[in-house]
């Protein structure tokens, strides 16, 4: 059953939230040990919540648009009283005293949270191997990674643990794992979804978004979590999205530009089978009536470099609060500053330490202009290039990830190779624009390929139109 079908089935009495939940818990029981999508399965809380929803439904009340839908939440989103670890030892045992805004919205919409999903520590990574609690495996081939950093959420949906999941995307952390796991993943416009309660990695880039099996289900979840939140100053003062008409509108007459740099142009390393799928996607959109042509967004080639200055710089500051003083574990030492050093040395993994050092360096007196200042200029350049592209095109298109899912351990020794996984997705974060990954075709290894649809700020509606067309075409093929 698709997520979208669950609420009406419960309202009609065809099933109950409890029954839906138990079905999913059984799948979790069968495969979770092998996959490790979750840091925590919240069986008891989920059962209580399902009962509450069934009781409401029995009284003829509507528990909301997500009535009884099981949902998995990335473990960097705060849940009141429930451990929120960011897959880091430094938050071991910490239970937030409050819910993130989106958690409140999910509860109010009748969703049933089944667990907190694994991620690369503090969302830094592209394979979910940088987790203090061990890697997540790709349900489609357990010798492969699910992508990252929201690998646990992507795997949970792909494995059928939950039809919906929440992820966060700072440089591609929703879209890339969605592509590698063969599910739909959406990074909304920056500010579309409240960040209140999302543990910050890089505040100016982080954005929460949905994972789902289908484009329609992703739209349903995005509608619930979007909309202005007074607790997040950077949240856009707009009502929640309504994407219902986008799903059936088609792409007739839309102008779509294929980003040349990411499609065999300036940037190397995009595999041939992925480029083949992109060609098929272009065909599909063209036959649906869109006008598709290649176009250049020249500064995207600098996106990765700028990102790996800006994101670590913000991270070095955001992660400074993990000092052993107020929460989390503490390693005792003779003086306060020695305690802080010892706690951070023991608590953070290598990749997190690497980025804290990079970011601290980039912000240091004497280096600021050369690194951080320059990267901000590149960011402005990317925004300008996109603005120019959107004068001519309604949407842009590219692969989501350079390859299909790669084997565990393949890139852990070479951080730069790992960073290249985000080459196609990073520019949307720098620009603050929405982008989504839709499964389309497969590689020579039989694993799924994701196609990325990019839109200008606030234009999720047009983006979902193309997403729905690609999905329909992909399903028609198989």
């Amino acid at each position, binding site marked *: 059953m698709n997520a979208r079908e669950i609420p009406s089935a419960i309202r009609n009495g065809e099933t109950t939230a409890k029954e839906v939940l138990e079905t999913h818990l059984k799948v979790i029981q069968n495969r979770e040990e092998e996959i490790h999508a979750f840091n925590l399965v919240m069986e008891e809380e989920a059962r209580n919540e399902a009962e509450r929803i069934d009781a409401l439904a029995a009284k003829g009340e509507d528990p909301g648009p997500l009535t009884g839908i099981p949902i998995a939440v990335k473990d960097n*989103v705060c849940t009141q009283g429930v451990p929120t670890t960011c897959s880091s030892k430094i938050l071991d045992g910490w239970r937030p005293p*409050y819910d*993130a805004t989106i958690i409140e919205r999910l509860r109010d919409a009748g969703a049933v949270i089944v667990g907190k999903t694994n991620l690369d520590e503090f969302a830094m990574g592209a394979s979910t191997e940088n987790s203090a609690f061990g890697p997540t495996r790709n349900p489609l081939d357990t010798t492969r990674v699910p992508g990252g950093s929201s690998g646990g959420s992507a795997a949970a949906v792909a494995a059928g643990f939950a039809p919906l999941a929440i992820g966060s995307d700072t440089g591609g952390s929703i879209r890339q794992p969605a592509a590698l796991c063969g599910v739909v993943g959406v990074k909304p416009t920056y500010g579309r979804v409240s960040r209140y309660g*999302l543990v910050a990695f890089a505040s100016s880039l982080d954005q929460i978004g949905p994972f789902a099996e289908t484009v329609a289900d992703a739209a349903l979840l995005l509608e619930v979590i979007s909309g202005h939140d007074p607790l997040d100053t950077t949240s856009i003062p707009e009502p929640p999205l309504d994407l219902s008409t986008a799903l059936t509108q088609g792409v007739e007459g839309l102008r779509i530009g294929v980003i040349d740099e990411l499609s065999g142009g300036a940037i190397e390393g995009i595999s041939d089978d992925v480029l083949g799928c992109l060609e098929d996607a272009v065909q599909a959109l063209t036959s649906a009536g869109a006008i598709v042509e290649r176009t250049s967004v020249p500064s995207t080639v600098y996106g990765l470099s700028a990102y790996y200055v800006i994101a670590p710089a913000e991270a070095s500051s955001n992660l400074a609060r993990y000092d052993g003083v*107020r*929460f989390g574990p503490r390693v005792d030492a003779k003086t306060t*500053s020695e305690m802080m050093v010892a706690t951070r040395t023991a608590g953070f993994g290598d990749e997190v330490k690497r980025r804290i050092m990079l970011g601290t360096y980039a912000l240091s007196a004497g280096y600021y202009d050369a690194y951080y200042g320059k990267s901000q200029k590149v960011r402005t350049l990317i925004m300008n290039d996109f603005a120019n592209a959107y004068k001519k095109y309604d949407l842009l298109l590219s692969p989501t990830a350079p390859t299909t899912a790669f084997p565990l351990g393949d890139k852990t020794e070479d951080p730069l190779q790992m960073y290249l996984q985000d080459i196609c997705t990073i520019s949307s974060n720098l620009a603050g624009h929405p982008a989504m990954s839709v499964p389309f075709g497969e590689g020579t290894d039989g694993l799924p390929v994701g196609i990325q649809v990019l839109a200008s700020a606030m234009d999720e509606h047009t983006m979902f139109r193309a997403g729905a067309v690609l999905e329909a075409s992909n399903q028609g093929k198989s």
Partner: protein
Amino acid sequence: MTGDILDGWETVIGLEVHAELATNTKLFSSARNVFGGEPNTNIDPVSLGLPGSLPVLNKKAVELAIRVGLALNCRVQRSVFARKNYFYPDMPKAYQISQFDLPINEGGWLELPDGRQIGIERAHLEEDTGKSSHVGGGGRIHEADYSLVDYNRAGVPLIEIVGAPDLRSADDAREYVAELRSILVAIGASDGKMEEGSMRVDCNVSVRPQGNQEFGTRCEVKNINSLRSLGRAIEYEARRQVDIITSGQQVEQQTRHWDEADGRTHTLRSKEEAFDYRYFSEPDLVPLDPSPEWITEIQESQPSLPRQRRIDLAKASKTEPRDVALIVQKDLDEFALSAIEKGADASRVLVHLANNLADGVGHLTEDAFAALIHLETSGDLSATQAKTVLADLVDKGGDPDQVAADHGFEAMDTSELDALIESIINEHPDDWLAFVQGDAEERKKKSGFFVGQVMKMTKGQADGKVVNDILLHRAEN
């Protein structure tokens, strides 16, 4: 003053004043902003910097910051918040949200009571830190057995007012801080209580040979908790620097700690050890861009400022602004103006406010004050009696006539007084002769004697001025 101590040297001082803004809630959250209270009770996820929490700017704090900027004649402008990064246990996020290259207020001035204008470089918004207490090891973090942190203060809104190096003495510095405090209190921006830490002063001091235009190397002195320590710290630090230079050495740029107990400043950190704060724009907050309409609205609702109030009272009392500075500082100028408006003699109003009402007016009303001064200037009460009645009015309130009557103070009939004086003259013929024939000095001495006698016999009820008039009149006729 410094001229006496440091002959040939000039002290150059620039102050950085932090004042807590008088808002109900914190700068970036709805936790309460109140002094005192059990440790860690006025806190929330934002004040503690819990993971996932985000700051939301307090509009009232912005309004008060703009008020401060306007009162200090600054340009109020679009501003950007920045993170100032450093590790310290009482700094919940390990960064302070402040303003760096684009402060909300820039480029103003403050006028001292003597008319000198002191430059204001900027006045920006930032959040306060928590408060650490270090237990054992002399109360310093390095030697402490353990430390306790209270986060009630964390996130309280501060305005940091950076003054230009325009001050030249400890007295200047004290006057500047007193004036700044008056302004902040007048506009309701802060309660300005140094003793509760709601107003804190850091002090940059350098010295240079008198006449030199170039600045010397400065030291920043921290931990100044009162106007008195401000003056002491400046004088100590200037002396220390002059001693270094005159012994052939060079002053090293340092941050120094004022120790109230031993009356010295001590090295806290050298220039090399100075923090690299790694400032960058705060990505969790959008730029702050107050509308011109809002700024105008705030400007139009500004109360009268101390400078204008000095001018107004000086005009009403026909004195100079600097002569009424204390009265304005104590917020008694409206009281004075009201009494003057009710017909009270302006010079008596100022004298009483300066000498007899320095601790406040208590239950004294403006009407009673004016009426009392009438009784005094009309001769119905002597100066001494007036003072006694005034003290009662301050304590308990009431009607001056009634209070005077309760004390048995009745204006003496001049003829009654005249008769009394005649009998005293008759009892002391030699003294009288000396009064009549003596030079000015002798006459002054003897008048003292006779007034004293009269006061003794009337138990202080006679008006000394009237007694003198009678004596003079008799001597000349």
